[in-house]
């Protein structure tokens, strides 16, 4: 173990009479750790309990998604995108389909666009729901909030399973539309889930927002000003918690998001408390979108009849497409050389890039806060390491 000498206390600031010299402690957290959300590892340098340096170590779930995708057909990569951010397979599908549609110039029928919005917002709901559970688990409330979250998430997963045949790995979107139409009764079942959600959110807010321990653990922790977040490429709820109105559903207006009225919740300080509240408020807005999307869902085909599934060869060129996934900006970058496989296939992972400022957020905080800050970033290792 590499122990490093700490700098002596500046004159007049020592908390005890004869400070002498303290030794810094190097501590490795992970890759097996109950709160690193998978196989994430951090090398922290501690002065007592205070973090002096913190370096993330990646790659423990690097399963070569990009290389595999460059060796298989465009469509065959679709189920692999499910396994990037394995909480949000449908938004991953959408980002990939959107990019291929840009690459090939494909149109998407209106009903399919509505279905995509409905499924993306349901994905956002269930992602933020378990996010709350895991974040509270990181603070020590292990079990109960997570259990409420998973109970509610299972209601959404039942909808996914009824539609796509799988709880988590949906593989539902296709270039130019969706794989199949809704089964009978699905929209009514989705309506029931959507109607039950406000009650769940009320319960969560009652449980969480006034909780003294939660406020003490989250307020003033991990905040970074918005300008530096932008420079570091941080996106999604983290950026909005710092007070910057940047949501790709409004900025890019991809799909048919310009047809729905919803607000962008904004935080003030960008600390962990704001990040938590942003997610709670975002769920309410998602419910508004779901409400009107389920009401206005038009009839029609769910896939563009011109879309080729077999022997699909997009014209030579390249495209970058991005969507607002529950974690942030999820992008795909594809280069086509007119062969059935993409020449270059790149995933822009929000989880990885949101970690760029992890050290800045953690330095000066206590070691116990590191887990809370990491939890508030909301990473999934399948996406960080790909």
């Amino acid at each position, binding site marked *: 173990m590499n122990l490093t000498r700490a700098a002596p206390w500046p004159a007049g600031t020592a908390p005890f009479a004869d400070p002498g010299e303290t030794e810094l402690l190097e501590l490795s957290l992970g890759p097996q750790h109950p709160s690193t959300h998978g196989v994430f590892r951090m090398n922290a340098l501690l002065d007592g309990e205070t973090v002096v340096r913190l370096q993330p170590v*990646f*790659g423990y779930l*690097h399963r*070569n998604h*990009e*290389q595999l995708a460059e*060796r*298989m*057909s*465009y*469509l*065959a990569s679709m189920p692999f995108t499910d396994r990037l951010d394995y909480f949000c397979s449908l938004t991953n599908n959408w980002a990939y389909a959107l990019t291929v549609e*840009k*690459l*090939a*110039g494909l149109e998407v029928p209106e009903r399919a666009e509505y279905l995509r919005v409905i499924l993306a917002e349901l994905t956002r709901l269930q992602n933020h729901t378990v996010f709350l559970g895991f974040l509270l688990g990181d603070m020590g409330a292990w079990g109960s909030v997570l259990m409420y979250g998973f109970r509610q998430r299972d209601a959404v997963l039942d909808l996914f399973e009824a539609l796509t045949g799988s709880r988590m790995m949906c593989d539902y979107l296709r270039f130019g539309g969706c794989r199949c139409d809704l089964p009978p009764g699905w929209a009514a079942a989705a309506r029931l889930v959507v109607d039950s959600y406000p009650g769940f959110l009320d319960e969560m807010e009652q449980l969480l927002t006034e909780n003294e321990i939660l406020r003490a653990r989250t307020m003033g922790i991990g905040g970074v000003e918005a300008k*530096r977040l*932008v*420079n*570091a*490429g*941080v996106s999604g709820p983290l950026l909005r918690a710092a007070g*910057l109105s*940047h949501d790709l559903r409004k*900025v890019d207006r991809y799909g048919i998001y310009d047809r729905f009225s919803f607000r962008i919740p904004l935080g003030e300080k960008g600390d962990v408390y704001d990040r938590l509240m942003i997610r709670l408020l975002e769920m309410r807005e998602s419910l508004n979108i779901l409400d009107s999307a389920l009401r206005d869902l038009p009839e029609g085909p769910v896939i563009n009849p011109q879309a080729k*599934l*077999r*022997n*699909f060869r*997009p*014209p*030579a*060129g*390249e*495209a*970058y497409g*991005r969507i607002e996934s529950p974690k942030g*900006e999820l*992008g795909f*970058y594809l*280069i*086509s050389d007119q*062969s*059935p*496989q993409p*020449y*270059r296939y*790149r995933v*822009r992972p929000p989880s*990885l*890039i949101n*970690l*760029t*400022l992890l050290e800045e957020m953690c330095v000066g905080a206590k070691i116990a806060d590191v887990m809370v800050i990491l939890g508030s970033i909301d990473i999934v290792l399948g996406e960080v*390491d790909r």
Partner: protein
Amino acid sequence: MTDPDRLLSLLEAGLPGSAGRVRRWTNPGPSGQDALLVDPDAALEVALFLRDHPELQLDYCSNVTGVDWLPREVTESVTTTETVGGETKEVTKKVTRTEPGYLEAVYHLYSVALRHGPVILRLRAAGREAPAPLPSLTPVWRSAEFQEREIFDLYGISFSGHPDLRRLLLWDEFEGHPMRKDYVAPDEDGLPAIETAAAKGEANR
């Protein structure tokens, strides 16, 4: 505001002499995302200009990635004038030549402040041999930090000026750069690769 011609004229006005060092790269596909091909020596200057120009404010570097372009054979028709026996005539010949391969770093820039983009920068290294140097744009956009480390790890482009250039995903003892098109993972147990329809490139519904 992301029309490359407009960008080029702004660049020429703000950075005199950049015309020869930044060129337009036209995307043949329907996405319409053209790029700027930037001379590596001018990259840092151009990046700072794009970030700080009030009309552009490209403050958000979304995506950084590497691309490995293998050497390829190009067959083209070359028309020359030849004088045969005092008679001058045009002769068209098919000429095959090998274009050298190179490594490329691609940056996708957006403006959060002005809500426009993408502006795409392409930086080309001289060849494919390590260390294939390129200037790092991490001092301009911090978001490039991990992504340039990933390119260094998987493609072997070494970014000069990067604060902490180490392998990102693989371990330090690893040799080679596995995302390169000619990388072959060593066979460890003699088992044949599973020949799936997907692996053979046949789309299966």
